[in-house]
C-alpha cells in the first residue's frame, strides 16, 4: 500500500517535472546547451574550420548563457545518429549538424527527441517540427570567382574538384562555368568527382590530375587546403579559397575565395531557443546578408579584379541574379527563358549541368 503511494507520488513528481520542463521551454531558457556535429577536424583549413570559427564567436557572444559542445570527424551516415543521440541525451537543447550527409540521420534522431531542436546545414528535409535547414548561397560567390577564372585562364581549361553529386555542389559547378564562359567563350570545364569532403591526399591527387590535363584554374568543393598546396608547386596555376579565406595561399595560387560566415545565424538561432521563439524554417542567405563573402582578390589584373567586384556588388544590390535566362540545360533543352530567374525550388533540386559542360553527373 505504502509502496504504491510512493510510486504514485513518484509518477506525479516525474510528470510535474516533465510538464515543468516543457513550460520552461515555451517561455525560454536561462541557459542553453548547444551541440555541433562536424564532418571533418576543426583544423581542416576550410569548411569545418569556418563553422568552428563561428562557434567560437557564438560562445564569446553568449558567455555563460550557452554551453557549446562539438564532435569532430563524425562520418556521414548511420554512425552520425549515434553522435547526435548522445548529444541529445546529454542535455543539448539545440543541435547543429553541419554536413549534407547528416540529412536523414538528423530527421531520424529528431523524431526521437521532439523537445530538442535540430538544425541541418545544406539539406532540404524537414520531416518534423523540430527540424530546421539552413544553407548559404555559395553559388553567388562562385559566379564572382567564375569571372576571375574566365579572365585569367591561359589554356582555357578550368578544373573543378567536386565532392558529392548533390544540388549544392552542382549549383557551384554551373555558376562557375556560366560566368567563366560569359567573359571567355572558349573555356572548357573539367569536373573530377572525389567522393570525399575531407581527404587531403586525394584532393591533392585530383588537383594534380587536372593540372596534368592542362587545366590552369582549379575550383574546389572539398574542405581542405590541399588543392591549393598542390597548385602552389606549379607556377601559373590559380585556385580559390573555399569556405574559409585560405589567406595563407595569397596572393597566388589563391586569387580570391568564398568565405562562409555562420556566426550571425548561429547567434540568432541560439537566442531564439533562449527566448522560446525558435521555429522550424528554411534559411538561405547569401552575399547580400553577409552569409557569404568574397575574399580579397589578389594576383590578377586590375581590370579582372574590378569586373569581379562589380559583379559582386550587383549581386549584393539585387540588380543581378547569377542564374538569369536564357540558360539551356546540358541536353540543349530550355531551362530558363530570356530574363527568367531561377527560383529556390530550381536550386533545391538542381541535378543537371547547364549547356556546354561535358560529362555526366554521377547518380
Amino acid at each position, binding site marked *: 500500500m505504502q509502496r504504491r503511494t510512493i510510486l504514485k507520488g513518484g509518477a506525479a513528481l516525474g510528470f510535474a517535472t516533465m510538464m515543468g520542463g516543457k513550460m520552461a521551454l515555451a517561455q525560454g531558457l536561462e541557459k542553453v546547451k548547444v551541440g555541433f556535429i562536424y564532418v571533418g577536424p576543426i*583544423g*581542416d*583549413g576550410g569548411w569545418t574550420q569556418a563553422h568552428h570559427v563561428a562557434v567560437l564567436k557564438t560562445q564569446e557572444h553568449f558567455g555563460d548563457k550557452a554551453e557549446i559542445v562539438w564532435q569532430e570527424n563524425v562520418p556521414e551516415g548511420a554512425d552520425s545518429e549515434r553522435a547526435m543521440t548522445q548529444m541529445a541525451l546529454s542535455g543539448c537543447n539545440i543541435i547543429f549538424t553541419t554536413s549534407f550527409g547528416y540529412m536523414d540521420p538528423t530527421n531520424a534522431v529528431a523524431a526521437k527527441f521532439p523537445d530538442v531542436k535540430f538544425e541541418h546545414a545544406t539539406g532540404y528535409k524537414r520531416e518534423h517540427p523540430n527540424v530546421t535547414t539552413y544553407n548559404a548561397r555559395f553559388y553567388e560567390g562562385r559566379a564572382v570567382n567564375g569571372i576571375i577564372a574566365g579572365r585569367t585562364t591561359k589554356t582555357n581549361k578550368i578544373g573543378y574538384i567536386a565532392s558529392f553529386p548533390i544540388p549544392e555542389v552542382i549549383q557551384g559547378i554551373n555558376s562557375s562555368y556560366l560566368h567563366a564562359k560569359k567573359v571567355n567563350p572558349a573555356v572548357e570545364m573539367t569536373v573530377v568527382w572525389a567522393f570525399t569532403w575531407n*581527404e587531403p591526399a586525394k584532393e591533392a*591527387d585530383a588537383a594534380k590530375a587536372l593540372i*596534368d*590535363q592542362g587545366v590552369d584554374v582549379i575550383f574546389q568543393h572539398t574542405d581542405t587546403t*590541399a588543392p591549393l598546396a*598542390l597548385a602552389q608547386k606549379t607556377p601559373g596555376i590559380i585556385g580559390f579559397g573555399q569556405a574559409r579565406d585560405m589567406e595563407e595561399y595569397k596572393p597566388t595560387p589563391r586569387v580570391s575565395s568564398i568565405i562562409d560566415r555562420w556566426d550571425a545565424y548561429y547567434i540568432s538561432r541560439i537566442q531564439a531557443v533562449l527566448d522560446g521563439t525558435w521555429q522550424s524554417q528554411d534559411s538561405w542567405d547569401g552575399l547580400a546578408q553577409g552569409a557569404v563573402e568574397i575574399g580579397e582578390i589578389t594576383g590578377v589584373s586590375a581590370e579582372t579584379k574590378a569586373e569581379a567586384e562589380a559583379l559582386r556588388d550587383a549581386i549584393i544590390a539585387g540588380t543581378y541574379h547569377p542564374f538569369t535566362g536564357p540558360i539551356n540545360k546540358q541536353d540543349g533543352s530550355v531551362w530558363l527563358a530570356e530574363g527568367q530567374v531561377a527560383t529556390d525550388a530550381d536550386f533545391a533540386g538542381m541535378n543537371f549541368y547547364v549547356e556546354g559542360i561535358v560529362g555526366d553527373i*554521377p547518380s
Partner: protein
Amino acid sequence: MDIGGINPAILIASLMVASVPIMLAAIGELVVEKAGVLNLGVEGMMIIGAICGFVVAVHSGSAVLGFVGGAVGGAVLSLVFGFLTQFMLTNQVATGLALTLFGQGLSSMIGQGYNGIKPPATEPLNFGPLADLPVIGTILFRHDWMVYGSILIIAAVWAVLKYTRTGLILRAVGESHDAAHALGYKVVRIRIMAILFGGAMAGLGGAYVSLVRVPQWTDGITAGAGWIALAIVVFASWKPWRVLIGAYLFGGITVLQLNLQAAGAAIPVEYLSMSPYLITILVLVIMSSGRGKAALNAPAALGQNFHASR
C-alpha cells in the same frame, strides 16, 4: 602519345609519387610481421610521422631533417606498442588498434597551430639532360629523392631478408619464436628492433604525405593510407618486391581514376571511384585461392606473444 586523352608517361610518374607513402609503410610492416608481430597501428604511426616530420621541417627549415623527424616520431610511437606487447604481453590486435586512435589524437594535439603553414619544399633531383629524355625522362628522372629512396629501401629489405644472417634470424623469430629462443636468440629484443623499423618506415611515409604529396598539415591527413599499407602486406604475401607492385597498383589506380575523369573518359565515375578497392579485393582473392600460397607464406608465429618462461 596519349591514350584516351592521358599521357601514360605523366600517369606513371604521378603514380610513383602517389605510391611512396603506402609503399614505405607497407615495407616497414612487412618486416614487423616477418618477425611475428602484427602491428595494426600503422595508420597511427604514419600520422605521427606526418606531424613530427612537418614540425621538424618547419622549425629547422630543412625537408631532409623533416623526414628524419618523421621517422623518429613513428619509431617512438611504435616503441609504446613494442613495450606493451613485448613486455606487458598485451593483445597485439587490440594494442595496434589503440595505437592508431592514440596516434590520431596525439597528432591533432601536436598539430595545433600548424595549420596553414608551408613546409620547406622538396625539389626534384637534378639529372640534367636525362630529365629531358622523352618518356623515360618524365617517368624516371624528374622525382624527388624520396621516390628513389623508397625503392632502394625495398631492395635493401629484400636483400637483407633473403641473403643475410640478420634476415634469417628475423624470419626464424617470426616462424617459431620458441625454436629461436632455444637457439639463444633474444626474441623480444629482435622483435622490438623490427617494430622500431616498422614505426620509422611508417613515420617516413607519413612525413612524405605532409611534406611532399600535400605540402601542408591538416588533421587526419593520412586518411586511411595505413590501412591500405596493411592490406598491401597481405597482398604481397610477405614478399618485398610484391610490396612495390602492390603499392604501384593501388597508387596507380587511385591516380588513374582521377586522371580518367579529368580526361573526360566516358566511364561512370562510381566505377572509377570504387576500382582501387575492387581490384584490391579481387587480387587478394586470386592470390589466396589455388595453392593457398598466400596463407602458407604468412609467418607462423604472426600475432603470438612470446615469453621465455614457456
